[in-house]
């Protein structure tokens, strides 16, 4: 077995003995990787993190850390750094003492502690706040301190549970960048939890999409966006158009699909394997062309323009296509594009490889 930094093997977890909140989790994480667990609320992300940190025990299965099973190892012996959503800075200690805490319990010498604390605070640009109490810091500042505290004892693995959840958008983006930077500089493995997909896409090496205790797909961000394995992932990540239909034939990985209004289109057969089953076609809004060159784009259908929204760099066009009135097309603002009008009927098209035939859920 190749040695991964962290491995979940067939892990299950139930709190009440009735319902599994994590079902058969298998996940391997390499050293230095930045893996994000992304999923809707209640999908079991925090539970997975807590099992890894040692605060919850797996009901079934094994978790390996550095090749060692850790199911019976108490949290303080795991040496895993952790950033909590609500920061969890000790309110009765100064910023400096908060950072010194993990080093003190490790009985490091005084001067080493001082230096390590100062270095860690400088890393997050919080050096001048060393004597403040957490109550005297802003949310963003607390988050930086929490980050520094989780890193100050040089763990090889850091867990972050929605660390930026409480921050406003601008600060969140800045912190994303800084966390990413620190990750690259220190080479630590990061397991990151969020339900903000743009955060997951910008920061991660790989994203594990959770739903209902199951990993739906684990892949690098571009794969996840462009090649979703199933319709949950397609709809969860980024904006997505869906068209319902039935598979007519499948030939060499390409399915001919009859839409609800009878039009026929081709799509990559990703998640369908037999003729006659219902399917959900997934097409990204930016891959749809208006009045396409029929020679280049084999897949064309009729659309009816419902609404146009001017967004500066592009125009969002909502139209009805094959019975779906929420079909979105992003038209780049290439100048002189006042050609569409609400109520107009147009021809739209896309490439076969941009249209994926997925499970109908």
């Amino acid at each position: 077995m190749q040695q991964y930094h962290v491995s979940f093997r067939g892990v299950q977890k139930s709190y009440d003995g009735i319902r599994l909140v994590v079902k058969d989790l298998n996940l391997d994480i390499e050293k230095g990787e930045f893996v994000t667990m992304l999923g809707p609320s209640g999908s079991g992300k925090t539970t997975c993190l807590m099992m890894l940190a040692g605060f919850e025990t797996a009901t079934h299965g094994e978790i390996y850390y550095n090749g060692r099973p850790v199911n019976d190892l108490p949290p303080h012996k795991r040496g895993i750094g952790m950033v909590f959503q609500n920061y969890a800075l000790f309110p009765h200690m100064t910023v400096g003492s908060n950072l010194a805490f993990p080093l003190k319990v490790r009985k490091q010498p005084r001067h080493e502690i001082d230096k390590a604390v100062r270095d860690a605070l400088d890393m997050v640009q919080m050096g001048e706040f060393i004597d403040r109490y957490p109550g005297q810091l802003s949310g963003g500042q607390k988050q930086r301190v929490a980050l520094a505290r989780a890193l100050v004892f040089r763990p090889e693995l850091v867990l972050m549970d929605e660390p930026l959840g409480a921050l406003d958008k601008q600060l969140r983006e800045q912190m994303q960048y800084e966390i990413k930077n620190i990750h690259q500089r220190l080479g630590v493995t990061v397991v990151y939890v969020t339900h903000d997909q743009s955060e997951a896409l910008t920061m991660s090496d790989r994203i594990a999409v959770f739903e209902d205790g199951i990993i739906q797909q684990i892949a690098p961000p571009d794969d996840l966006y462009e090649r979703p394995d199933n319709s949950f992932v397609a709809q969860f990540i980024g904006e997505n158009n869906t068209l319902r239909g039935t598979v007519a034939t499948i030939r060499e990985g390409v399915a001919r699909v009859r839409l609800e209004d009878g039009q026929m289109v081709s799509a990559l057969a990703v998640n369908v394997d037999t003729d006659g089953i219902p399917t959900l076609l997934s097409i990204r809004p930016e891959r749809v062309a208006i009045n396409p060159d029929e020679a280049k784009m084999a897949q064309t259908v009729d659309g009816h323009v419902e609404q146009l929204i001017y967004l500066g760099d592009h125009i969002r066009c909502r139209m009805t296509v094959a019975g779906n009135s929420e079909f979105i097309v992003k038209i780049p603002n290439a100048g002189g594009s006042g050609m569409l009008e609400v109520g107009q009927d147009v021809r739209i098209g896309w490439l076969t490889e941009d249209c994926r035939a997925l499970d109908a859920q």
Partner: protein
Amino acid sequence: MAQHTTADTSLREKLRRAERRRKIQAGTLIGPLLLLMLIFYFIPIGMMLYRSIDNSRMREILPNTARALAHWSGESIPGEEAFAAIVRDMKKAYPARTLATAGRRLNFDQVGFYSLLLKSGRKIKKIDGPPYRDKLIKIDKKWGDPAYWTVLKRGLRNITWMYLLRALDLRYDTQNRVVGVPEEEAIYVSIILRTIYISLSVTILCLVIGYPLAYFMATSSASVRNLLMIGLLLVFWTSLLVRTLSWILVLQDKGVVNSFLLWTGLISHPLPLVFNRFGVYVAMTHVLLPFMVLPLYSVMAGIPSYYVRAARSLGATPIAAFFKVYTPMTLPGIGAGCLMVFIQALGYYITPALVGGPKDQMVSYFVAFFVNERVNWSMASALGVVLLVMTGSFYLIFGKRVNITNMKLG
């Protein structure tokens, strides 16, 4: 730089103005309530304070003497008019039996004054004209001693510190200096120290028992917590007297505990468990425990579990996480609980009176004693003032530190 400073001060000024407006608004809201408190809380306390120094009764008994001594320098015995005045006063006060009251009061300052006044009162009818000085000194030559006149003059002032001094085992000597009372009369300081000692012991016992209890409540499931809470509040629903008496039943020689121990054969004679210090500790700790547990619980319930988890993830053992992170965060609860228990214990009366022995009585017992048995309101008030000052100073010293005003209960 200078510009910077002016900007600073104007900002500070603005802040102060904004704060002041807020304070005025708050003031109008709590104004009526404050008035009510003033009437029903501070006025009785004020009356007690006044009672402890009020000496006007003496001037009512000996009005002429008080007037005649007002300008006496105190260097030698006073002049003839002072003697005439006291003869006149005594003629009226002796038959009215108020002379004995004055005598008792002056005897505090100068032993022998009581018998001096009564003896003179008995014979005062014989003095029918001047020279008053010589005739009075003939009745008792103590009247020729300036020391007695000094005591008398001090004793006729409108206010007196005598009772308060007495409550601290101090008194004035004949030269108007504050000195300690003779050793065999000094009892109050040791009672005050005993009161503090018992209160402190009860506070520590409550903390030792209450802290784990509150922690257990804060960490257990809702149903267990409610059960414990009811058990705790049950204490409030039973009368203090009943609870104290039930301890006597449990702890007395033929009580449950001793019967059981005798039955097991661990002891051959009943252990003295009640009517002594042990009984006082047991009963007071039981009665005051909720006042420790409730503030502790309220603080603990507000501490999210992620703090201890954070400590564990940072490498702290469960014990280190508990003592270095959890316990310090409960300090406001510890402070508030200890202060509440301690301050209440200071004023405890019924419980020690019932389950304690003579050597376990606290200051309040003597307040009641002076009111009920001696009908000496002044001494009772003086001891009350001592209690009040004790309580107040503990509150001021520690209340600020534990921020008791920010405490929420339940």
